[in-house]
């Protein structure tokens, strides 16, 4: 099995301790505020009951917004991490930190920030505890001497990734970097040598799936119906958003950030917020009299 396929199996495991099960990304608040009552004309299907239409509507808007804002940061972080061998540890960490702080400045919502940071750190912990190469393995398995050259190179890359992740975790703990989910996802996927394309698709798929899991826990949809949506509806959405947003980047083309660089902010390839209503509902999460999720 090739690396990408095997990693997809590993990373799409719903039991991975990524902390996403406590997050509904605003869905709980959306229900609490009575939004399923709002008819969605563009999704109207006389045969469908209200619940799936409102859930599909929420997922479509929420996923589109997440793809537009977070995906470019995930792919920039992935690329930064992929270049770690050439650029070195310090430059890589500085690059990640800049992305992380930029993302923080763009995600202007305390609930979303809180959830994103919790899940980001969980991903890095998952990497160092769950995906790092056990040291005993080298002594235990010295047989494959034939491929020793390429294996050494792989091991060096793996060790560098582990060093970067450990150093970055320390920075997060010291409050020097926020540790947001998209940045940590990019770090993780690149450290595992997942390709950029797959990393982006999986990032969006996992987001959409976690919304569906939240919908199940909120009793808004059954587990079978959720699987149905995942296969027949969410798939196109993920593909569409991955391709719509694939050209986006948070990095300025060039030039110092200090000059009034209008093109940087006018460029349509910059990340953006596209669902202001979603922002309001997500930010109102903690106001709910009773709630089961953290966001």
């Amino acid at each position: 099995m090739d690396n990408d396929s095997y990693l997809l199996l590993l990373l799409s495991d719903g039991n991975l301790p990524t902390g996403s099960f406590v997050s509904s990304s605003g869905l709980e608040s959306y229900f609490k505020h009575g939004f399923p009552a709002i008819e969605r004309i563009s999704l109207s299907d006389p045969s469908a009951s209200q619940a799936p239409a409102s859930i599909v509507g929420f997922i479509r808007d929420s996923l589109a917004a997440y793809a537009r804002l977070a995906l470019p940061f995930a792919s920039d972080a992935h690329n930064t991490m992929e270049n770690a061998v050439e650029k070195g540890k310090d430059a890589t960490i500085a690059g990640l930190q800049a992305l992380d702080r930029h993302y923080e400045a763009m995600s202007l919502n305390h609930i979303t920030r809180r959830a994103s940071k919790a899940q980001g750190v969980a991903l890095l912990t998952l990497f160092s505890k769950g995906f790092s190469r056990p040291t005993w393995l080298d002594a235990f398995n010295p047989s494959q001497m034939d491929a020793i050259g390429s294996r050494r190179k792989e091991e060096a890359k793996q060790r560098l990734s582990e060093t970067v992740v450990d150093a970055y975790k320390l920075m997060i703990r010291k409050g020097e970097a926020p540790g947001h989910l998209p940045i940590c996802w990019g770090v993780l996927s690149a450290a595992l040598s997942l390709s950029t394309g797959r990393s982006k698709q999986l990032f969006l798929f996992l987001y959409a799936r976690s919304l569906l899991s939240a919908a199940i826990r909120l009793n808004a949809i059954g587990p079978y119906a959720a699987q149905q949506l995942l296969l027949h509806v969410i798939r196109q959405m993920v593909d569409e958003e991955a391709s719509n947003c694939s050209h986006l980047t948070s990095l300025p083309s060039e030039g110092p950030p200090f000059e009034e660089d209008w093109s940087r902010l006018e460029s349509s390839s910059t990340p953006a917020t596209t669902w202001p209503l979603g922002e309001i509902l997500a930010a109102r999460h903690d106001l709910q009299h009773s709630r089961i999720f953290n966001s």
Partner: protein
Amino acid sequence: MSKSTLVPARNAIHGTGRAKLVGFGTTASFAELSYTYPLKLLSPRQTTATNIERLAILYNLSYGGGLIGGDQLALTLELGSDVKLLFLTQGSTKIFPSRARPRLATGRAEVGDTRQRLSATIGSGACLVMLPDPVTPFSHSSYSQVQIFRLAAPTKDTAGGSIVLLDWFTSGRMSRGEEWQFDRYRSANEIWIGNERVASDVLLLEQPPSSSSVDETAKKINRLRDSLAPYACYATLLLFGPATHALSKEFAQRYDGLSQMQRKVPEDLIWSYSPLEYKTSINNGKRNSGQKETGVGAIVRVAAKDTESVRQWLRESLRAGLEAQIGRNAYSKAFV
């Protein structure tokens, strides 16, 4: 269904403006105030006696007739230390469609876009209060606005700069049943404190790309409305700097007192408040001290079914906090 829109019969223009406000004694005056058509800046003399020192009001009157596709306006504001500026418009900013329709599919800023740029520097202890009327993007218009605010960082001896920034828009000419029919609306606000970017608020609303088939058009328009319904007016308020702390605190207290029960249908007006923590380098005279200080700004978002409700909500919510800053007389000129 298609209604013809009367577009002002003129060619697209590039206009620029500059205003520099400095304090002297108890007054603030414009050391520079210049503009080229169609930008027009006007500073009314304050007739009523006011106990607010170093305050000026500036109206941006350029938008009276509305902006058309291809118009480009660039405005530079400079606030010296310890001055206050209330920045207002007169009436909503109407965005007409460009007569040569921009291509939808590329999504890039086209020649036909209406563009506005604002660059503002805010000195130590100074405060810029921007309370414009909302932007109203007409059917098939394409609008892009970029505003960059550079606030002086606090030092050991001086306070930092402050900003109260209101940015809001409506779904279109609701009276004509024109809702969410613009091609593209984009508004970017970036706030820097010293050399730290503390907020980068980029809002982008556009009709989804994809097939250009005519049958799809109705569906596409519905999609933008679907995701923003039942509201037709959205406002964002950004608060940073020491002059905004009391106002932020007031919002926080009010917000924390809310408790949301299960609703059957959404409320007519909804709002949210988020404190925004940031870190800035302390400039304590020593170079590269590397010290970071945590500060807190805030963002308030409001949405309602009609513009008037948002205006009224803003007027009442900001009253106490802003009257303390700019006085009752100046504040009465906002949200009229």
